């Protein structure tokens, strides 16, 4: 917590200059003289910014200026709902100031603002501002031009069965996707705007009575401590507010599926929706929740248990398989059954490198191929896989640079890392594979164990918003184990969770109980 505070970067010299420049405006309330206000706003939007200042007369009597960014607001609506009625249709007997106009302009979301900063902030966010002669407050209208991608199937997290809606870049669309699923009025959201320049809106969603209020308060505290120029993606936020940003293990879950967010809200977590990115963040998470797929709950529970165990196994393999191969072929050949040993020895006979170097070459080549495949456009991406399969796979083996068993090991490791449902959770095992390989190459299985110990020590000390990362396995709370090593059929599960809910005192949600239990 203090860490995130300490990380608040010093403002850049340029920014300090800008701040000094705009600072006086912050304390300035709007004056009642129209020309003063317009001049002040003109000074802010002097050059290079495309703000329209449209001067007109209300009821052909009183001077007024409408200030807006034409590319951010719906100008057709603006003309019809604001300009039209104001120029012609105001009854004569009303006093014409911002206060009255607020009540009679036919726009549902209008608001009064009193300072220059607020006014300029609204203009920048695309809300038109109306300043009227003689009024010391201005009127803003919410007439956003909504341009966003359609709701599509999430590409990074596909399931065979389950809803196919994914978040988009638009915050309003994302919120509507959540609200559609969660109709209880206890589904609450807090809003905060982050970023000196981007003023990105971040919404913290939680279920009142289910999410621990202390965790929500802590999250809000960390969010408001962020001091940065801009937020363009959820990862920016994640790195600012994680308990240990230096850990390779993600302490927040990023998802583009509204159903995943809702499921997590029901389990007592909170979610962050960030304007401009389809990825929502969910916290607090544990290692085991990072290894769960939404589909675990959308298919028959026996299959889910099987897949879940398979996933744990392969997560482990993706971390240690190359190291185990290196350790065993280098130090513990006696462990390999004789027949297999002979074929491995035959395959390795022509290879000029020790197993460790061979493994490193192959793993790095594989990571490079993977990265190339992700970055390239889809049409070229296919070419990468052909090059990879032919050159790395076949040609390198025939040329005697790597052995066939090594190719198999790397292939299995690759498949294992693809089995992890969350991309960000797989990063840790991809990264940590290399140091463990080095340890296995120098100290054999002993070294591998030492590497595993270091990882376990790290995981044991890790917390996500106060919740131990390895809970409920350690610290143990056996009632929740059912969802780690098991996935009870829905009936049993529902009983359990409703028990949880009815026994729970307010302010004592599921997650908090895990956290307090050491």
């Amino acid at each position: 917590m203090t860490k995130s505070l300490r990380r608040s970067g010093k403002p850049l010299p340029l920014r300090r200059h800008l701040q000094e420049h705009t600072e006086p405006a912050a304390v300035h309330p709007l004056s009642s003289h129209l020309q003063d206000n317009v001049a002040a706003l003109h000074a802010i939007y002097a050059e290079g910014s495309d703000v329209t200042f449209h001067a007109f007369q209300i009821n052909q009597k009183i001077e007024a200026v409408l200030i807006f960014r034409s590319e951010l607001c719906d100008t057709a609506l603006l003309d019809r709902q604001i300009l039209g009625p104001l120029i012609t249709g105001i009854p004569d007997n009303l006093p014409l100031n911002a206060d009255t106009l607020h009540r009679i302009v036919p726009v549902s979301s209008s608001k009064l603002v009193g300072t220059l900063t607020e006014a300029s902030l609204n203009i920048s966010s695309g809300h038109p501002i109306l300043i009227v002669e003689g009024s010391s407050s201005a009127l803003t209208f919410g007439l956003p031009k909504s341009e966003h991608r359609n709701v599509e199937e999430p590409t990074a997290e596909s399931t065979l069965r389950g809803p196919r809606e994914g978040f988009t870049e638009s915050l309003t669309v994302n919120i509507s996707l959540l609200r559609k699923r969660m109709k209880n009025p206890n589904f609450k959201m807090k809003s905060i705007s982050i970023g000196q320049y981007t003023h990105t809106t971040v919404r913290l969603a939680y279920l009142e009575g289910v999410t621990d209020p202390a965790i929500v308060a802590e999250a809000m505290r960390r969010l408001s401590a962020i001091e940065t120029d801009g937020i363009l993606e959820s990862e920016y936020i994640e790195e600012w507010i994680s308990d240990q940003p230096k850990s390779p293990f993600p302490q927040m879950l990023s998802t583009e599926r509204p159903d995943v967010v809702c499921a997590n809200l029901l389990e007592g977590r909170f979610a962050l929706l960030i304007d401009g990115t389809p990825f929502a963040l969910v916290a607090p998470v544990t290692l085991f929740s990072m290894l769960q797929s939404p589909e675990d709950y959308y298919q028959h529970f026996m299959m889910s248990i099987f897949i879940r165990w398979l996933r744990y196994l392969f997560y482990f393999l993706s971390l240690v398989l190359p190291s185990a191969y290196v350790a065993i072929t280098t130090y513990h050949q006696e462990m390999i059954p004789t027949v297999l040993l002979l074929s491995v020895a035959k395959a390795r006979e022509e290879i000029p490198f020790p197993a460790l170097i061979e493994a490193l070459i192959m793993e790095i080549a594989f990571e490079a191929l993977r990265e190339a495949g992700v970055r390239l456009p889809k049409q070229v991406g296919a070419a990468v896989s052909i090059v990879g399969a032919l050159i790395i796979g076949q040609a390198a083996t025939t040329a005697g640079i790597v052995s066939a068993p090594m190719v198999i090991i790397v292939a299995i490791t690759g498949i294992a890392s693809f089995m992890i449902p969350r991309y960000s959770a797989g990063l840790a095992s991809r990264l940590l594979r290399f140091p463990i390989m080095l340890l296995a190459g120098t100290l054999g299985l002993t070294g591998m164990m030492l590497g595993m110990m270091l990882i376990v020590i790290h995981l044991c000390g890790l917390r996500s918003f106060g919740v131990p990362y390895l809970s409920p396995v350690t610290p143990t709370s056996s009632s929740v184990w059912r969802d780690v090593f098991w996935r009870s059929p829905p009936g049993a599960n529902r009983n359990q969770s409703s028990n949880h809910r009815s026994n729970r005192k307010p302010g004592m949600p599921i997650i908090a109980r895990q956290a307090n239990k050491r």
Partner: protein
Amino acid sequence: MIEKGKISLAQMNILIYPAILATSILSVPSITMAHAGHDMWFTPIWGALVGFLTVFIALGLNKLYPERTMIEASTAILGSVLGKIFGLFYMLYLPHLTGVIIRTYGEFIISNALPHTPMYAIMGTMVLVCAINVRSGLEVIARSGQIFVALFVILATFLLALLIGELHPAEFLPIGEKGLRPSIVGALAPAAWLTEFILIAFLLPFVHNRSKVVRKSIIAVLYVTLSMVVINVVCLLLMGDMTTSFAYPVMIAARYITIADFMQHLEAFVIAIWISGIFVKISVFLYVYSLTIAQWLGMKDYRPVVFPTAFLCTVFAYWIARGKSDISGIISASSNLYTLIALLILPSLLLAIGMMRQKISGQGKAAP
């Protein structure tokens, strides 16, 4: 308090389990066999009596001063000068004990897994990992302990189950050939290991749910004893009289495992499992030693002394023995008396004095 983390009673017992078994699993079968012959399999049961005694001493000390470790309690019981002298003994004894454990690890790895790797690399890497663990705090030690002990127990049970086909129950006979005396002498080694239950006196102040501590501690002693008995029985039924001739009978036992010509030569696997146990053991003792130093010196935090302590213990690991023959001398019966004095007799004297003082001064002084 010097340690802010709190652990549960179960976590404490889980930590103590490998803290006793990790090294005893290696040498107890052959040591007990040397003294007790075919009766060696039930020697740990005699040892358990000492284990219970130790547990009661530790719990007695804790009852006198519930929030203090043995080192802190000693100054309260004996006064500051005598108490500090008492603490000084442990300041000198604990690195010795930890050094022996580290050396055992080094010797074992060198003779079984990495014959060409220098000893300092083997011991140094392990001690470094343990020191990182200890620095992360008691909660982390307890949690990583839970994971590795679970691994240790599950895989060890699995391996022992694979040996069932190779056992010869006839090796039990004759039972009590020379009376009970040999088995009682042989029990000295398991007893010495079971006195390590005095760790409770160091760890209990950090346990948050102490209501069932007596029952749970007795169960812990029973589990440790049972494990020792099982290991002894397996070694006896597998190798019979030959058990004494091996330095590490359990490793020999692992060689017997052959399943379908595929799973064989599982020694490296056994070593990997064992390492997870010894990791917990070294961590626990390193923690207790760092805590002792910090409390003896009246420091506010034990973390700064962890790395120096770890280094000192590694140096002790070199000092205590010249070679492999020396190390087996240190863990054999003659030195068990030394362990018994440090871990059983001195604490019991402390408890006796503490109880007497409490009696004399009446009530009120017990809980300062």
